[in-house]
């Protein structure tokens, strides 16, 4: 409660600053709402579908950003903030962009968000902050909060004048983090700011978790992630790679090493398969494997040792963001035909609209209302064909989406030489099975208290996909932040 009160006070105090008032009055609301929403500058689709590393979204220019910032009405009750899991002071950073104080805007972002350049790129703003924007109530498109976030973070990085949030004096309390993905990094940043001695342990050889192994360079360049991680290092966060919590170091080991609190952000480790015939043929693989080879191991670079198959006729099964990342990667590795195979219709696709739009522009074929039922090999064990069952939509199911039903007898055969299965992930069992005393759900996730993210082991907090099963970067970051507040309160005996 204390934190929420504080936040509201800060929001209204900042809004009342003289420059903000003057800025609000400098332009009429109807002139602000009359401005058309900015369009993201993008690489040409034909060019970009053949370039592996170049980022598709090129960001906004200063002029575009300042113009877009004018659209924000600087509401007295900024509903956009209720849509932000990490509670960014959205009007405050936007108004700083409007007045040209870009570094100040970046500073505000970093007060509550450890990874603004990442969130500005991969956060589904249309489902978060932008879905709560006042413009929508007037039948206009929301302010492009995500683009502006990215602009401010990029401007600061490129200016070479990176600011660091204030760090409280060291309190000498050691905390450990299992996993260096979005939830762990967010937790680490919040705790470091509060004066804790934070060490993040990562199982892989690179820091960043899904930001490195999962999301491709054309959507989130690794160097952007590295800069944000360096920002956390400057706050005093220590990183240790090649260390698996639950294996290399046990729960007891962490205590022997002096850690008083543990945050588990070990992610959704296991890829789901469909258990259909032929799924173990060569050339059929999980999106996790495909993307890890290409992103983490840089397998498409001829100078690296890790191999990756570069299919010419590639089917990606699924309709989420990971499926879009996979199919667009396949195009960039030289696929002549890159297909999304999805059992529902496009309206039910969980992927971001932007991802679907980009994929279509680049030439991806969308085979919606199709479901694979079997893969057939070439006699040497390599996948050669897939059998697709055509579907139609029936009544809504438990997810609220219309249930796909097979159309009897309607089966199609399509030539493929690579199939990437992207039908979701299940939680990694390494920590749930090795920390005794945790409560584990039937889905294998760690059960936590909703308002604190504390597990049944009272010194263990958890967040991100190990709790949610499969969600987004920003929800994971929100969990990390919430857990940090709660763990800090527990140590300081507040609210007890």
């Amino acid at each position, binding site marked *: 409660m204390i934190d929420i009160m504080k936040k509201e006070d800060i929001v209204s105090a900042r809004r009342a600053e003289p420059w903000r008032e003057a800025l609000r009055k400098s332009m009429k609301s109807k002139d602000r709402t009359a401005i058309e929403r900015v369009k993201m500058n993008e690489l040409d689709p034909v060019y970009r579908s053949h370039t592996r590393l170049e980022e598709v979204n090129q960001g906004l220019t200063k002029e575009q950003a300042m113009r877009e910032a004018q659209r924000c009405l600087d509401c007295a009750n900024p509903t956009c903030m209720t849509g932000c899991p990490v509670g960014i002071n959205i009007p405050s950073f936007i108004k700083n962009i409007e007045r040209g104080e870009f570094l100040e805007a970046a500073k505000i972002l970093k007060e509550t968000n450890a990874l603004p350049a990442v969130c500005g790129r991969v956060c589904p703003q249309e489902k978060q902050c932008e879905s709560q924007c006042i413009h929508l109530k007037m039948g206009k498109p929301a302010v492009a909060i995500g683009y502006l976030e990215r602009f401010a973070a990029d401007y600061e990085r490129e200016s070479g004048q990176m600011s660091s949030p204030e760090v409280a004096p060291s309190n000498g309390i050691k905390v450990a983090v299992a996993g260096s993905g979005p939830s762990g990094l967010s937790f680490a940043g919040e705790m470091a700011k509060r004066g804790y001695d934070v060490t993040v342990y990562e199982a892989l050889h690179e820091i960043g978790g899904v930001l490195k192994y999962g999301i491709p360079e054309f959507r989130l360049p690794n160097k952007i992630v590295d800069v944000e991680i360096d920002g956390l290092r400057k706050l005093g966060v220590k990183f240790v790679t090649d260390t698996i919590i639950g294996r290399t170091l046990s729960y007891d080991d962490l205590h022997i090493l002096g850690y008083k609190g543990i945050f588990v952000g070990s992610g959704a480790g296991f890829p789901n398969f469909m258990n259909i015939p032929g799924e173990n043929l060569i050339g059929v693989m999980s999106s996790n494997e495909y993307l*890890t080879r290409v992103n983490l191991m840089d397998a498409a670079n001829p100078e690296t*040792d890790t191999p990756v198959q570069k299919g010419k006729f590639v089917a990606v099964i699924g309709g989420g963001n990971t499926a879009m990342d996979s199919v667009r990667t396949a195009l960039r590795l030289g696929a002549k035909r890159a297909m999304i195979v999805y059992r529902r219709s496009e309206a039910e696709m969980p992927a971001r609209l932007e991802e679907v739009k980009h994929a279509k522009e680049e030439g991806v074929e969308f085979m919606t209302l199709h479901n694979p039922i079997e893969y057939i090999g070439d006699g040497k064990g390599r996948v050669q064909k897939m059998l697709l069952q055509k579907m139609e939509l029936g009544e809504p199911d438990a997810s609220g989406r219309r249930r796909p039903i097979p159309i009897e007898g309607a089966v199609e055969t399509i030539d493929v030489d690579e199939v990437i299965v992207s039908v979701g992930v299940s939680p990694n069992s390494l920590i749930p099975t090795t920390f005794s005393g945790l409560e584990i759900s039937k889905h294998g996730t760690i059960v936590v208290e909703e308002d604190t993210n504390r597990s049944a082991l009272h010194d263990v907090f958890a967040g991100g996909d190990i709790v949610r099963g499969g969600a987004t970067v920003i929800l994971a970051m929100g969990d990390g932040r919430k857990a940090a507040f709660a763990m800090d309160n527990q140590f300081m005996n507040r609210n007890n």
Partner: protein
Amino acid sequence: MNKIVSKEYFSENVVKLVVEAPLIARSRKPGNFVIVRTGEKGERIPLTIANADTGTGTITLVVQTTGTSTRKLCALNPGENITDVVGPLGKPTHIEKFGTVVCAGGGVGVAPLLPIVEALHKIGNRVIVVLAARTKNLIILEQQMRDLADEVIIMTDDGSYGTKGLVTNGVESVIQREKVDFCVTIGPAIMMKFVSLLTKKYNIPTIASLNTIMVDGTGMCGACRVTVGGKTKFVCVDGPEFDAHEVNFDEMLMRLGAYKDIQ
């Protein structure tokens, strides 16, 4: 970064590396493996831990040069560092008193068999080891096995050492001679397949330790999947040891060739 403490050639293509890894040395159990990466552009490959010394904080790896990554690793000398060593991974071997156990090892599979033989013997099993290779100078770790096992039988394809014949001939000679309660086999997939077919014929419960293609080794990618008892399993987290009679070795052999044309 993990420093190589010592290096010994077992044969032209088989190298024993003792590597500094104090945390892994302390927490590993027989049957566990590590993922190793050599160089910043290196590939992640799984290697079973052959031994560990908690006193010196080292683990022992026995590596056969079969491709780019193993060649790079074996080219490293004492004092040099392996870029990444992570583990221990996989489920440890289930050790219990079975009675008489035959441990059949081939190629570098003999190395990870060593700690299993040690543990099985320690708990009171009568352990008979069958070591097999193409020819005499490819037989490794014979003396270490003799120190730990009740009996060691050597088989070579060309008869240059021990008895001429395949590993299965050696195993079958034991089965025909005395009651065998359990079998462990580690080696090339094709060898494990035939050992498994043999022990199935005699109804002897058998486990095989599978060495499939892996990337992360923690269950994340699924490159290592195999069919066991009709169900897909991940070798890295569900294994690496499985009931050999339930493993689809033909599928495993096929999948091991996934990147042959690319690498």
